């Protein structure tokens, strides 16, 4: 990874990434609305809403619960399914003026293989395997929390593509073990983090507000936790690609992640809060660097002790 001077751009394996700001999977959907609101070509990368093999309705409402410093969400991976995605959505994404990451989820290795094979020839930059959605029922023990299953699955996927494979995890205690499994099986990096589990109870009905009881906690409230995950993973894995995600709503948040060791920084909740936030962050970063005569590589990983 090499960085040009005096700007924010990141060159990674022949892909030029304008700046480290990535639209995270989910909150921005597949960009249909966002591309009409902001100039996506000013953003570093765009991640698709996670696609599953089969069409998924998602969870019944409410899906969004307001809490201090963020939200608990229970979307449940609503998406039209892989077939429709390939036909209706991917061409649109391929034509966006921003490098695209496609996010895939399944609890079955074979489904991931099928999807990945078809995506291999398409104009997308990274593949993100979402092993950590808190909002779907799993028929059996999930892949994403078991290092052996992670290793087995990623190994299979690795054989099918030369594209960069990133694995997305929730902030868990055993994160170093899970990352180790993913990397040794051949993944280039990780996305840290998906939403931790959170709950809110409606004291009037005396029941959890979400029908599935808990949901995924996102927003500034989780940043201390997810930032620590990025920091701890970077400490152990010097050379992997890390997209740091969790509670980023301004350039200071983004700088914290970059200093902690994130190559790129994902914005999820922030896009929902205000769709202009990603561009504001880019502009604020440019200004911040210019004022201090610094560039990206002069701050990257700087919080790590040497």
């Amino acid at each position, binding site marked *: 990874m090499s960085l040009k001077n005096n700007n924010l751009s990141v060159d990674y394996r022949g892909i030029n990434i304008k700046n480290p700001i990535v639209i995270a999977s989910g909150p921005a*959907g597949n960009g249909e609305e966002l591309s009409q609101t902001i100039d996506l070509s000013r953003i570093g990368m765009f991640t698709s809403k996670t696609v599953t093999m089969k069409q998924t309705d998602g969870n019944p409402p409410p899906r969004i619960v*307001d809490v201090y410093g963020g939200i608990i969400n229970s979307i449940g991976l609503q998406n039209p399914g892989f077939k429709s995605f390939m036909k209706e959505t991917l061409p649109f994404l391929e034509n966006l003026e921003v490098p695209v990451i496609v996010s895939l989820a399944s609890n079955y290795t074979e489904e991931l293989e099928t999807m990945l094979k078809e995506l291999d020839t398409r104009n997308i930059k990274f593949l993100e395997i979402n092993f950590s959605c808190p909002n779907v029922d799993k028929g059996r023990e999930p892949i994403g929390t078991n290092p052996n299953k992670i290793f087995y699955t990623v190994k299979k996927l690795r054989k099918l593509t030369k594209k960069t494979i990133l694995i997305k995890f929730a902030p868990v205690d055993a994160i170093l073990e899970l990352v180790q499994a993913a990397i040794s099986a051949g993944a280039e990096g990780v996305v840290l983090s998906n939403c931790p589990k959170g709950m809110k109870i409606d004291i009037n009905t005396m029941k959890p507000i979400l029908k599935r009881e808990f949901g995924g906690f996102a927003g500034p409230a989780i940043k201390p936790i997810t930032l620590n995950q990025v920091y701890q993973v970077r400490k152990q894995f010097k050379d992997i690609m890390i997209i740091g995600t969790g509670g980023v709503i301004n350039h200071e948040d983004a700088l914290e992640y970059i200093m902690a060791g994130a190559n790129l920084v994902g914005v999820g909740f922030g896009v929902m809060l205000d769709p202009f936030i990603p561009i504001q962050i880019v502009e604020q970063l440019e200004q911040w660097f210019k004022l201090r005569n610094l560039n990206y590589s002069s701050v990257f990983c700087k919080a790590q002790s040497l």
Partner: protein
Amino acid sequence: MKKIILKEKYVSDDFLIVSFEFENPFNDNTPDFIKPGQFLMLKNRTEPILAKPFSVLNANSNGFKMLIKIIGRFTDYLSHAISGETFFYRGPYGTAFEKKLDLSKKIITIGGGCGAAPILFFNEYYYKNIEKTILGFKNDSITNLINIDEAVYESLTGKTVIDELNEYLLHRNKKEKPIVLACGSLGMCRALHKHSLKMKYQLFVSLDERMGCGMGMCKGCPIKTKSGIKMVCKDGPIFNSDEIIWEW
């Protein structure tokens, strides 16, 4: 988001009327700034709290007015805010009522609680189209804030908006099939839907669902319809009630 300044605020019980002024009228004051049925997402200055959706009561080139029910964090904040305080908005979002209604016909409009806001705005915009209006409130505290001729106060009369509508329809002397546009809680809309099947009128509902982005991206505000899951914020908030699958 764009800056607005809280200009006036009137509180009565758990209702609130607020007016905001644009910081920058020149950028905001197109005549079609917002249409009845559309909504704005509002946020205060400091907390990283999601923006919340609100209809407008009326709007002009200097700003807009809203009728708001105090129910939680943001609305409570607003009820304690003082003139001069800065807020932010984005939008308008959502489908204007006129896009789904046949404006060559007369329409019966119904509002429940703060659902009165978009109805009053619609009434003002399309006053020629209004056949009848019924606005229901739990009690008459709202009269301290605005004069609403068409208001019905449940706790005083013991009658709901549906009772009133029912009476009106029973004595209605028109041959055209009635068209009803209603805005209120999910409970009210669901009850109206049942009533519409019995009384055979065409019903459009403007739904209230918790929102995330307000613009169709996040899949946070679903409603089940005969043609799949739709988003209240973008595909609605107005829906033909026949389209909706009310139980999920």
